[in-house]
Structures are given as C-alpha cells and as structure tokens.
C-alpha cells in the first residue's frame, strides 16, 4: 500500500499546529512532548491495554500492558485495519493510554526507552510528535 503520509506537507503542518497547542509538560530529556487529549479507543482499551496505531485510531493497532524496549520485532495485529501486519517500529502515528494505567504511556525514539519521547496521561489518546513514524520503544508506567 502506498504510504503517502510521510510526505504530506499539509499533514505535517497540521501535526505541528496540534502539537504546538498540546505539547505541554516536559520533564527534560532529549526532547519530550506531552501529546495527550482526554479520550479512549475502545478496541484497544477493552482488554486493559494501551496501543500504538499505524495511522488513525481506527487503523491497525499493536497492544501492550507494560510496553516493549524494542518494537522492531512487533507487528500491528492482523485483521485490525489498515497497516495490519506491518512492523510497529518507525511505523506508528498515534498512541492511546488505557484508563487503568497508574500514570502515563511513553513512546521513545530509540530502543531501551532512550531518546526523545512523546507521552500522555492515562485515559488519553494523541498523535505522536517526536516519535511519529520514528518510535522504537514504548513504556507504560
């Protein structure tokens, strides 16, 4: 399937404007963006999980309860929508954080929970910023 989102200037502009409005809390690191907006995605949250999504919240998702230090060997679940079967690493556009999570969900640029990071509180969803199509590990805390 042709992937046009990487090169769509309008989408990037939209994303930057959204993040400009939403990126707030930043415990300093290589670069952290708070991307959370209150909300849920029921397919993922239904089983106490937090998810990364291939594109929109209705696209294919990869679900986790605690995260993974290397997303290179994980794939978007089959039969869950556009992008199913694709490798998760460097391929996710959005994240959702289950409302049973004690604190936050974090998406990191590098494996091993290092590098720039996008994060949200529980009960939120959001579009990745620093790690948009560039995420390598995810942590749920």
């Amino acid at each position: 399937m042709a992937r046009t989102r990487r090169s769509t200037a309008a989408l990037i502009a939209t994303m930057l404007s959204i993040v400009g409005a939403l990126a707030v809390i930043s415990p300093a690191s290589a670069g952290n963006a708070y991307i959370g907006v209150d909300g849920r995605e029921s397919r993922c949250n239904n089983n106490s999980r937090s998810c990364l999504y291939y594109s929109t919240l209705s696209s294919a998702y990869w679900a986790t309860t605690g995260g993974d230090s290397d997303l290179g060997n994980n794939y978007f679940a089959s039969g869950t929508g556009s992008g199913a079967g694709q490798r998760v690493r460097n391929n996710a556009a959005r994240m959702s954080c289950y409302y049973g999570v004690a604190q936050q969900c974090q998406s990191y640029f590098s494996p091993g929970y290092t590098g720039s990071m996008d994060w949200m509180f529980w009960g939120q969803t959001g579009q990745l910023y620093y790690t948009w199509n560039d995420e390598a590990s995810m942590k749920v805390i």
Partner: protein
Amino acid sequence: MERRFSRRRAATSMAALAVLAATVTGCGADDAASTGGGAPAATPAAGGEVVLPIDAYALTTVDVGRLGHARTLLAGDCMRRFGFTFDAQAVEADLRDQVKDVGLHGNLRRYGVTDDAVATRYGYHLASTVEAPAAATGEARSDHGLGQLTAAKEAVLFGTTADGKALAQVGGQQVPRGGCLGEARTRIADAGQLGESAVVSRISAESFQRSLNDPAVTAAIGRWSACMKAQGHSYPSPLEVAATFDLENPTVAAKEVATARADVACKRQVDLVTVWTRFEETYQKSQIEKHAQELQRLKADRAEQLKRVSAVVTGG
C-alpha cells in the same frame, strides 16, 4: 469493595517522594517540588543525574507525577460522586519507580548510562524492570478501582457517549464538560493547558539534536567508541548500546553489566559527559535569553498549577 483513598496517606507519600528526589539529586525538598530559581549549571549529580539550564523552566519528574496524581484524585472524586469506585494509590508507587528510572529531571539516560553503581546493578535495564518486574510488565497494574469496563463508566469519565455525543446528565446530576477528566483538568489549569508550553520541550530537544552534530561532541563520541573497542565492545555511539540487550527480562546478564561498566569508564576517560553538557548548556542559555519573556510567564503559570496540585494532593 471500594478502596477509599486517603489524602493524608497521599501527602505523606508525596513528602517521601520529595525526600527521595532530594536524595537522588542533592537538591532541597523545595527544589524537588518545583524547579524554580535561575538557570543552574550543567552539573552531573549523584547516580548520573544531569541538570541543564532549561530544567529551571521544565517540570521535574516529581512535578509531573504530582500533576498526574492530582488529576487522578480529582477525577476520582468526580467518579465517586456518580457512584463509581475509584482510587489513586497505584500512582504513588509508580512515581517512585519513575524517579529511579529517569531521574528527577528526566535526564538520567540522556547520554546513556553514566554511573558505575547503576551500570553494575542494572546494566542498561530500567531499575523498575529489575526490582519490580510484575509492575513493569503491567501484570500488577491497578485499574484505579474502576473494575470491568462499562459504557456508563466510560461516559462519565470522558463526558461523551459511545458514539461521541456530549453527555449532559446522569441520574439527575449534571456531567462536567469533558466528563470527570475534564473537571480534573479545569480545576488544575482552568481553560489552559496542563503544565507548560512546547517551548521548553523544543529547546531541550533542539539542544540535544544539535549536540549530535557538534564537532567537539562527535570527536568525544569517537574517542569513546575507540575506548570501548579497545575493551572488546564495538559501538559507534553510547546511544546505540542499550538496544543490543534484552531489557524486558528482569535478570541483568553479566555481559550487559560488563558492557555498561566499560561504557561508564570510557565516558569518564574521554570526559564525554562534560563535553556534551558544555555544548547543551551554551545552546540552552542562548535560547533562554531569546525566549526570556515567554519562559518567565510559563514559569508563573507552572507555579500556579503546582500550587493547586499541592492543595489537591494534601487535601488543602
């Protein structure tokens, strides 16, 4: 049975966290609760913590935890008003883990592992993965006492029905705009955003990204790589090392510890952290000067939010 959350217990726990943060960084409790004051020097502190100038304007890990804690408490108060169970106890334990994992300013892994004691004990693992593996994998995670997901609970929590329509009333009670999470957000930040604007994040990110192209930093990384190779570990950058180990397994392998200790020793030998932080400090100070007015306003907004957060957490 509903677990009632104790504000007194929360206050005690948050005080303990302030002490923990002070222990980690050498800061006083007031500094730990809120990173005020002028731009501090880039100072490697105990356990590999690094403090950079922009950190004076950023929320600390403890600040973020307190903010999240207050949000959870307020949402819980609201949910109970509508007859649902809700607690926030898990937040406290997770915040302690978070400070240990990333440090008070979130910089603990900015340049990879930099402390020999940490390398010896954890290798490249997060401390929480080794010390509390069940929690780290989500197996022991709280559900905030909400129990089984139902449409009614979700509707009150988020203020919308399953099809996305705003929910006005439940059982004769008016549902807050944005649900209980919306009420929590408003009580902390009014109509504004939680915390501070993107400018702090942007300065921190740009500082780090530009440092990767600085000749002095890249030369120091080259010397670090040569030092590692001489000890039998071939890596182009300290940012690439962690990916080569299984960080999900709570057991830290001997090879990982040996690599991490060599990593720390080589960083010291070539003075990598000093060179790296020197670049970031210079860049950040110039940006802070450029955005001085905006950063001062953000600091004032942050102080007001944290004042409200303290009142919520301590039951004031």
